[in-house]
């Protein structure tokens, strides 16, 4: 168990800046997930914590000690790789025992430690097999076992589930949560899959373009994103974005106009900066409803583009006259796909405002 601080870390390959001024503090025992699109720098950050990648500027502190110059093997971190990286010429037992063998531990100790890790992962009966004779999920467990055997202060996972099929992935996710509960060790997990991040994380760190966009609890980020990127990245289907003009500003409310062409919307809002004339609304699919008719001005007219009917829920993809796409989640009734015209209504409580620069505009 260990706490970890990352202070002012930057990294570039030649002219390409991979990480810019990253600051992050991870508490002991936390399950932290780095999530972001490919190339956002999340893997690089993980590899810098492991020591496989150098951190030329800034500091990485593990239990208060700067580890920038400490050899990867001596940092007390263990890593589980995307490809598992099991040694193909060794049995599962030898794979898990490799680090102890390198450290010249006595045979009895090795046997005992590997045995304990194998028991946690229910691998006892597979220890004599080589990686070639194991299934994807089993390989994954051996790779995790190899990490457990080292009794690390921090576990690092680099997209460990992305080579598994969907069903197995869900199952392994549950196992990882249990494992974390059992070991209580700090775990850092990298993925590009936001669902995986949401289900696993105590703390979720969203990255893009080498910058930490926001970190916090998964639901905290879902409900209260700092910027358009985080808002759009988390949640499936993606949050809807609609451009609008600010028509009137009062102390505790504003009026927006030109939504989807001509609609108006009244929003409760404290201390809106009256200089801002244009905003972008972010509305999640569950905060939009299909309306019966164009009764009031806050109702938008739209055309149905297509409908995804999943049984428990229906996603209605509609096009606004402005060309913007609006996805509506409807769990009440199944959509009757005959009409192409429809009306939608936004729930003011679920509307988030973003400036033209993509930053969130919060009510004070």
């Amino acid at each position: 168990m260990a706490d970890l601080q990352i202070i002012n870390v930057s990294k570039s390959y030649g002219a390409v800046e991979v990480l810019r001024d990253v600051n992050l503090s991870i508490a002991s025992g936390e399950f932290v997930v780095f999530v972001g699109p490919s190339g956002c720098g999340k893997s690089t950050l993980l590899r810098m914590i492991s020591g496989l990648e150098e951190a030329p500027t800034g500091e990485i502190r593990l239990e208060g000690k700067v580890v920038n110059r400490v050899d990867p093997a001596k940092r007390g971190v263990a890593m589980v790789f995307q490809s598992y990286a099991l040694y193909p010429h060794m049995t599962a037992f030898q794979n898990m025992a490799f680090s102890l063998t390198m450290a010249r531990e006595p045979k009895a100790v090795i046997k005992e430690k590997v045995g304990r890790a194998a028991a946690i992962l229910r691998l006892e009966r597979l220890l004599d097999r080589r990686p070639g004779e194991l299934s994807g999920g089993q390989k994954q467990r051996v790779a995790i076992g190899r990490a457990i055997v080292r009794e690390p202060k921090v576990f690092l996972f680099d997209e460990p589930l992305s080579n598994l099929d969907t069903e197995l992935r869900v199952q392994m996710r549950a196992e990882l949560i249990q494992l974390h509960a059992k070991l209580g060790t700090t775990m850092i997990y990298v993925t590009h899959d936001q669902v995986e991040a949401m289900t696993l994380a105590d703390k979720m760190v969203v990255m893009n373009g080498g910058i930490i966009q926001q970190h916090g609890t998964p639901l905290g980020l879902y409900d209260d994103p700092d910027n358009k990127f985080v808002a759009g990245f988390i949640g499936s289907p993606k949050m809807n974005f609609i451009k609008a003009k600010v028509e009137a500003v009062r102390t505790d409310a504003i009026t927006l106009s030109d939504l989807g062409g001509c609609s108006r919307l009244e929003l409760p809002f404290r201390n809106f900066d009256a200089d801002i004339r244009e905003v972008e609304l972010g509305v999640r699919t569950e905060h939009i409803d299909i309306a019966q008719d164009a009764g009031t001005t806050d109702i938008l007219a739209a055309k149905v583009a297509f409908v995804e009917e999943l049984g428990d829920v229906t996603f209605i993809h509609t096009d606004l006259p402005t060309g913007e796409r609006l996805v509506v989640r409807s769990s009440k009734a199944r959509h009757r796909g005959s009409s192409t015209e429809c009306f939608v209504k936004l729930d003011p409580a679920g509307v988030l405002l973003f400036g033209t620069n993509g930053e969130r505009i919060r009510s004070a």
Partner: protein
Amino acid sequence: MTTDVGLIRTAAPGYALDLSIWTVLKWTVAICVAVVAVFPIIWMINVVFAEPGVPVSINPRLLPTSLSAGIAKIDTILSETSYLHAYYISITYSLLTIAGVLLIGSMAAFEFALFEFPGKRPMFVIVMLSLMVPTAVTLIPTYLLTANLGWLNTMQGLVVPGLASAFGLFMLIQFMRTIPREMIEAARLDGASHFQIYRHIALPMSKNALVTLAILIFMQTWGNFIWPLIVAPSPQMYTVGQVVGLFNAPFSHVTVDIVMAANLLAALPPLIFFLLFQRKIVEGIAMSGSKG
């Protein structure tokens, strides 16, 4: 493949006949070629294992006729010449070369294939360019260098100049490139030192390539004629090739069957090797060839 064709063309009239003619023809040709390929070897064996004084070529036989006569001839050669000593020299020469090339080559290939270090690119380019240079060019200067080192007629003179095999390096690099980076990183995190990664990860993972290369080097050194000829001309250092060369010399006044017995003895190790490892050898050649 023929049956597939058959399935598609069953409608064609007279196809069954066509197929059988093709099959017969195919087998005939294949067997004829096989006979041409192995005939000289079989002929050699027949000459050796036959009563002396009856030239086989005049009275060709399919099978050896006299086992004892063949053994007697081999016995004559082994007792009257230093053939066994030449065997010893050739085997030592081959084994040392194999061990050296595998060790030195795999160490260098490990670095070239998996790591970055200053000067890597130019070094690699120079070594690969050397694959284009004919052996004939370096032969004489290398001989002179070996002579200056005082290594003529020594084992190190035979072995050492051949150890930096660019071909071996190339083959091992090609293979080691397929070792995933993550494997190396996992080992690093597991606390393996650079050398331990080479020893415990890269070497065992390259076992197939190393075995194939070892076999190819064996074939090559065993059959190497020209280098022993010039660098170890003393009878004390004769390799099997040179001893056989003495028998083979046009005016050696030795009877055919004795010459053939000497040749047969020289051919045995590679033939046995081939029969044991034929699949590995053939696939090794195919691999190094189709990647070139």
